[in-house]
């Protein structure tokens, strides 16, 4: 944890924190891309909840058609969920390419042009050399065309700060990798790729949320400004908020504990999402059909005879695999981790409430986070009580994604200024304002 704090402690000196000049439309576009990605995660949740992942057996074609030309008469049953997921993923891909271009500014033109041209040429080469891979060639050419187009527009972008550029490029790489994973899951019949695809989707969404945060005016005109390379930080409190959030965040960092708790809770949520993705991609339905008990007990029996008995009495509507002891243990682990997350997020909210005013952004975010976790617990229970109804299970996935993003953003905000001992507090009008007094009162040794 100390290591994490040390790592983050360098953030104030990093250009990431000061960021590029404000560009509200770029920020709005980043928010739009993040929201589109959240919707994509929801659509992916609908695909697995409806056991429709393999309903379109081919990729990048759809039932032999060009993906974008599949007649609507085929958009039925599981095909509807899978095909709309593919189309929306393509749209998200286009948005991310545009965002990369927007974040990268003028300097991104050449690499995007090279990548786009390479993809177009590779696509043309594939469908000329291997006729049986014609569809793949067309698809790659199409992607290259979009990238090439992005390179040709917005030539007059203001040069941005490098870290946001790098995050943009990371998103650019991830969205293409993620698309490839989705396709490989279909053509290689590999459920484990599906688990990785689902987990990476969550991280990708977090990345876009971070980009949205760092491009925001709130962040770029934030209260903390780095004044000297490694000695002092100027903390400018807002006149409207005497107990400045940033000052309080510094107090957190002095103690390390709350930061650690935020990080711990966020890590647990990611672990939980991986567990959830593993459960979903086992295609075994509900391994435990009751809640809060499990097969009528606090901890279910998982010996061979008991598991055989569970399978005898399961009456599933889908082609669910028989459950195994591993899957029962997995769901129990999911429940245990849920309790840990709830406790950790309650701890985070309580810490924020104790150390900040209610008006502090971190307190508000922590309260929202706790609310999300409570909703998530309710949705988890409802998923079981509804026998894994697709809409409820999908809502469970969506709220999980938002909870992870809320935790990640809380961590970034909280770790923003971990060197309070070196801080100099000034009010907008100069030193000696209410915030500096408040901070001084907190940090001065007792006399």
């Amino acid at each position, binding site marked *: 944890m100390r290591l994490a704090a040390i790592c983050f402690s360098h953030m104030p000196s990093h250009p990431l924190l000061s960021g590029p000049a404000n560009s509200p439309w770029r920020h709005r576009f980043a928010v739009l891309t993040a929201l589109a990605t959240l919707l994509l995660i929801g659509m992916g949740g609908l695909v697995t909840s*409806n*056991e*429709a*992942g*393999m*309903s*379109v*057996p*081919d990729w990048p074609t759809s*039932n*032999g058609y060009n993906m974008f030309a599949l007649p609507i008469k*085929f958009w*039925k*049953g*599981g*095909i509807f969920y*899978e095909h709309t997921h593919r189309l929306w993923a393509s749209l998200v891909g286009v948005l991310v390419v545009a965002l990369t271009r927007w974040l990268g500014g003028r300097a991104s033109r050449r690499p995007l042009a090279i990548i786009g041209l390479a993809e177009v040429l590779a696509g043309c080469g594939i469908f000329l050399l291997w006729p049986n891979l014609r569809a793949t060639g067309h698809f790659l050419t199409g992607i290259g065309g979009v990238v090439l187009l992005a390179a040709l527009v917005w030539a007059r972008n203001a040069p941005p700060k490098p870290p946001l550029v790098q995050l943009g490029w990371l998103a650019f790489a991830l969205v293409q990798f993620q698309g490839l994973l989705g396709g490989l899951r279909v053509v290689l*019949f590999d459920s484990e790729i599906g688990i990785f695809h689902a987990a990476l989707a969550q991280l990708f969404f977090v990345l876009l949320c971070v980009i949205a945060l760092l491009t925001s005016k709130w962040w770029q005109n934030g209260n903390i400004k780095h004044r000297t390379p490694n000695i002092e930080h100027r903390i400018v409190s807002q006149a409207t908020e005497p107990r400045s959030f940033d000052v309080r965040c510094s107090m957190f960092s002095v103690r390390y504990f709350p930061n650690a708790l935020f990080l711990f809770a966020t890590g647990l949520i990611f672990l939980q999402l991986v567990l959830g993705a593993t459960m979903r991609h086992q295609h075994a339905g509900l391994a435990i059909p009751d809640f809060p008990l499990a097969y009528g007990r606090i901890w279910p029996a998982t010996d061979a*005879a008991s598991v*055989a*008995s569970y*399978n*005898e*009495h*399961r*009456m599933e*509507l*889908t*082609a669910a*695999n*028989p459950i195994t002891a591993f899957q029962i243990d997995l769901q129990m682990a999911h429940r245990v981790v849920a309790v840990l997350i709830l406790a950790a997020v309650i701890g985070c909210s309580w810490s924020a409430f104790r150390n900040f005013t209610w008006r502090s952004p971190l307190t508000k975010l922590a309260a929202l986070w706790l609310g999300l976790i409570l909703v998530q617990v309710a949705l988890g229970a409802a998923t079981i009580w509804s026998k894994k109804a697709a809409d409820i299970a999908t809502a469970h996935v969506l709220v999980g994604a938002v909870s992870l993003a809320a935790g990640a953003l809380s961590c970034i905000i909280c770790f923003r200024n971990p060197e309070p001992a070196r801080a100099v507090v000034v009010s907008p009008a100069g030193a000696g304002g209410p915030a500096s007094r408040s901070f001084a009162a907190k940090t001065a040794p007792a006399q």
Partner: protein
Amino acid sequence: MTKLFSLLAAAGIAVSLQPVSAGEITGTVTLNGTPPAEIPITPLKDDPTCGKMYTAMPTTHFYVVGPNKGLGDVVVMLKGISGKSTGASAPPVVLDQKGCLYEPQILAIQTSQKLIVKNSDPVLHNVHDTPTASGNKEYNQAQMPGSPDLTFTFPEAENFLRFKCDVHPWMFAWVTIVDHPYFAVTDKDGNFKIGNVPPGRYTITALHRKAAPDGVDKEIEVKDGEPVKVDFTITLK
């Protein structure tokens, strides 16, 4: 007299040509215990196209139990025999997609025997087998209404290989692949008959997808031309 000798000679030849070394195994599989109630397939009835094919709510049929507790859809087969498949020359077996359900839901074939999958529905299905034996290959193919039948063969024995349709996730069937011809699937009253079994001592097993996925075993001896009766009782835990 000549006629009498001729008749006796013909009878002798006919008897000698009979597969005297083959036996027949018959029996009944009975369910002991009350199975869970079948559940309505609501998504099927709610489907705009498939639902039109039903006036009443279709239900699952995991437990096909006759009036005398005879259990249908049980695969009964000899164990411990391999490499005796006659599947390559055996007639194909048909698995139909009808009313947005697989028909039959449980069937058994030999290794290398052709399995013909038909689509009798006016809707697109995808035919997706999900084998667990390494030698059997997973396929996933769209089958438009009225399109040609699909043919599958599997080289390795496997119990309850699942076929499913991901477009309509309530559609599934289980195909047991056996490496010899000595097997049968019980009818709705739980009866089965396995013919042409060579004499010898065998382990015979009864597999039910839900109640006995690993099988209930019995030891039997098949003697020259003598029918053998074996009854199984599968008890719900």
